[in-house]
């Protein structure tokens, strides 16, 4: 009798520990590093909408199936590194803009969802944004797109990059107040 109770206590302790560990590791998702490119990473760009106007009854916009990309700290950190390496900062500075428009404000010329940003990077845009199709692999484009969204505070603060390693320019992406995207382009 007593030995069974002994086991009970041990088993209960072990179970409790296991549950606690699972809970802890689950919250580490934002730190997971998926270094391999996901097998199917092309979305059909035609599903991306650039206008909220829909004739007839408005239906819900296509779901953000790639939202999880921007909730991952590794992706955002990689995106930040690639942003400088691939000369995005040459045209967009650290979000303030230069040759290209500002990326840290609430104005989005071609849509603010991560799918829109992905499409902009891959397709290019007529007034000077180059097309990076076949130049930047898809997984990297998603990372850069996620980082671009973090520049205006649209990504979770727990995943966004913090203080830069370079000359301080704007507030860290982590501390950027969330700016709801505006669909106004005069």
């Amino acid at each position, binding site marked *: 009798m007593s030995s069974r109770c002994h086991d009970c206590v041990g088993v209960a302790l072990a179970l409790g520990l296991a549950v606690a560990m699972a809970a802890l590791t689950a919250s580490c998702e934002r730190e997971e590093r998926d270094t*391999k490119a996901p097998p199917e990473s092309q979305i059909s760009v035609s599903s991306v909408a650039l206008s909220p106007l829909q004739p007839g009854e408005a239906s819900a916009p296509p779901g953000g199936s790639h939202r999880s990309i921007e909730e991952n700290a590794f992706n955002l950190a990689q995106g930040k590194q690639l942003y400088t390496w691939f000369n995005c900062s040459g045209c967009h500075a650290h979000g303030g803009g230069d040759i290209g428009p500002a990326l840290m404000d609430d104005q989005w010329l071609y849509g603010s969802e991560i799918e829109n940003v992905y499409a902009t990077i891959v397709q290019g845009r007529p007034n000077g944004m180059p097309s990076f199709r*076949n130049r930047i692999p898809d997984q990297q484009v998603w990372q850069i797109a996620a980082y671009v969204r973090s520049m205006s505070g649209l990504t979770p603060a727990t995943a966004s990059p913090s203080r830069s390693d370079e000359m301080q320019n704007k507030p860290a992406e982590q501390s950027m107040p969330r700016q709801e995207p505006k669909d106004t382009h005069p």
Partner: protein
Amino acid sequence: MRRLSGSGVVVALVLLGGCQGVQSALDPAGDQAGGIAGLFWLFLGVLGAIYLLVLVLLVGALLGLRQRAATERRLTGLLTAWAGGTTIIILGLTAFSYGTDARITRLGDDAELTIEVTAKQFWWQVKYVEPQPSRSFETANEVYLPVGVPVRFILKSQDVIHSFWIPNLHGKTDLIPGRVNETSITARRAGVYRGQCAEFCGFQHAHMALDAVAVPAPEFEAWRESRLKPAPTPTPEDQLRSEGLQVFLTSPCVMCHTIRGTSASSRVGPDLTHVAGRRTIAAGALPYSRGNLGGWIVNPQSIKPGSQMPDIQLEPDQLQALLAYLDSLT
């Protein structure tokens, strides 16, 4: 006793066998490593002897060997001799250590060749610096050293702290971002040696190796001249290689790599102007061969997961053309 000594000899032989090799600090091939190894053997010898003596005395005490009655004065004398001996030995070893360190540091004073190494995750950017800038050139993950010539290394890091370590040639020197460190190496014996990053720097710290090749001076000059040349442009008749160059310039390769002689001049990844002339690729992860290069291009994340090289999607004939071109860059 005899069994002990017999197995002791076997153990010693096995251990000594590990002293040889391309990455052994106990097989010095240069002045600096020689100094360090000399210090190692000195310490090992002296301290080993003391250790054995202490062991013998301990065993003797445990076995309860007969002690003669110790007088007060004899005990004091023994202890004084012991303490004095210890002090002299410590001071001596310290002096040798300082002296060796000073000597090694001064070896780089009259360096005739300067190499600038910038560590990045997870590869080595190597630049041979000449007073006339058009005679400087860059390569990656390899250093060629002329035998007998003191070489100064200027060590920088682009991202995190790494450590530069070619065990056969010298000890470790860190590469710290925001700081410039210097070290020097004088190789004395021709051969191929392996260097390794010696400060944990991330996912692939373990696969951040470096080829250090010491060659006689004339061979070094020939190597230097060959590395100075830009990559040859494929002739129009050479269709496969021309196509390969086109693939290089129109795929993700051009975003990260330099091939001098083409319009590709990015510094995110290693300089590939003479990639086919190197012994290994991916900082020592694989020996160079066309097949290995193909595997690396298409699926680097399964060879070195966490390295900055992404999986590149190419059509098979594009890949073959690209490999044909890269294979010509000796």
